[in-house]
């Protein structure tokens, strides 16, 4: 149900993003999706890769600070209002949604797969059950992105 994402600390300076990408490229690790959060001073790069352990190892060997966290992969109908429907499931639950970014958008023209970072993934999954959205397994998520 959960997908492991790798988060990296990046300094906010030219060239900071290239190093981790280069390291992963040299190790033959494909980045399936990414999101970059930035502040004035620093940024956090969040990555989805298939071989999480190996990616973590090569990144740490290259001197990166890496943290593994779980995200939820949710398939959402790719139509107007699709995301709003999904978020409706959380309304009134007190569940804190930290951030969202896409794993696949516009795939097959019918659905998108979004990655959700929430404090309580199990609770989120339970809230989403019975909606027009579907929480994907790890395998399903990789399949959706063709990996």
């Amino acid at each position: 149900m959960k997908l492991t994402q790798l988060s990296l600390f990046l300094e906010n300076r030219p060239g900071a993003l290239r190093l981790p990408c280069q390291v992963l490229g040299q190790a033959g690790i494909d980045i399936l999706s990414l999101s970059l959060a930035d502040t004035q001073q620093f940024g956090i790069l969040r990555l989805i890769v298939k071989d999480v352990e190996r990616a973590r190892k090569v990144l740490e060997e290259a001197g990166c600070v890496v943290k593994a966290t779980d995200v939820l992969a949710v398939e959402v109908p790719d139509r107007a209002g699709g995301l709003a429907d999904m978020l409706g499931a959380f309304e009134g639950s007190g569940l804190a949604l930290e951030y969202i970014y896409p794993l696949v958008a516009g795939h097959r023209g019918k659905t998108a797969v979004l990655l959700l970072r929430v404090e309580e993934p199990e609770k989120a999954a339970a809230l989403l059950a019975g909606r027009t959205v579907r929480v994907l397994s790890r395998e399903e998520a990789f399949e959706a992105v063709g990996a």
Partner: protein
Amino acid sequence: MPPPDPARRFHPASAPDYVPAEQLRDLQLARLQRIVRRAHERVPLFRTRCQERQVSPADLRSLEDLGRFPFTLKTDLRDTYPFGLFASPMEEIVRLHASSGTTGKPTVVAYTQADLDVWTEVMVRAFAACGLHRGDVVQNAYGYGLFTGGLGAHYGAEALGATVIPISGGNTDRQIMVLQDFAVTAICCTPSYFLHLAERARELGTDFSKLRAGIFGAEPWSEAMRRRIEADTGVKAYDIYGLSEIVGPGVGIECFAQSGLHIFEDHFYPEVVDPVTGAVLPDGAEGELVLTTLSKDAMPMIRYRTRDVTALIPEPCACGRTIRRIRRIGRRSDDMFIIRGVNVFPSQVETALLAVEGTLPHYQIVLTREKGLDEMEVRVEVTPEVFSDQIRALEALQHKLEQSLDHTLGIRARVTLVGPRTLQRSEGKAQRVVDKRQI
């Protein structure tokens, strides 16, 4: 023709500055014998150290014999915190001051009424050496409080007969208004703050046409900075030296010649020593300044290691004073730095970082001077232990580090989180302080 420099006129308060050298040495020895005896009788740490070195006050037959006595270090004040080095009972102590220490605890200093009188006397002589006298209007922008700068300058200027404006530090626009409206003729503050004032005054279209003299201290500054101040503002910039462990401001001052600082050596006996071996160096040789208070009752400091690097100037001064001069202080023999008048040791920064993170991260202190104000940035490498996937957690960490630094140092510092292994390490040892200030 420009008006004559008032600093060239003799001020009666300056009489002790001109005592013939031979008489001065006799006076110093008599005072030294008394104060060493007092410390030996009343300060257990000093007595123990003397016993270890097998010296006693009776061995002090000449000024040269002082070299056989043990040093006092800043850490001694910390180790005996708060009152362990006092030589007077609290009933006789009328004032305490404190300055930043090396581990978060301040170093405390004490004064009897007689000590305060001496302090005032040397400050009067300091102001007189800068040509100040009754009728001058002195804006005292040194901080009032535990810091010795504010009250030291205050009582000195008042005793001189000048009109004192106890404005303390900060609030630049108000400082400028007062400078102009009250026809201020002399100002006491840090040189970097004065540059800031001058810049702001220019922005406001104000000038300080009445301001004649600046008594600048509490931080290192250079000849280049003096030239800039004097050229930009027309104010004669005097360097004043002092440290709270000895008395506060008023240990030494420049005269009109602006060629080294006269030490009021009838009260503060200077030696220059090799910072490594501790051996006393001859006049003229560069080394660490060591000071002994000759008249301070509440807290005699015997051979206090200032960590300030200088040399005693043996040649007589153009002003005719017989008290010796030291070269302006350019650097220190330890890693302490001074920012906005506050002494900071990297070890204090470490204490603050450690308090937040639990382990000590790699860090670097970067000092800059923007618009005449010193800024301190602490760059901290992010470790896996503290790294979070969430922006707000990292911002909270940054904030906590800043608060901890503020709490430990008493000054604001900006914390920047940087990537791992991005801070320079030279020969395995990190360069802790990068000073980019143009001083």
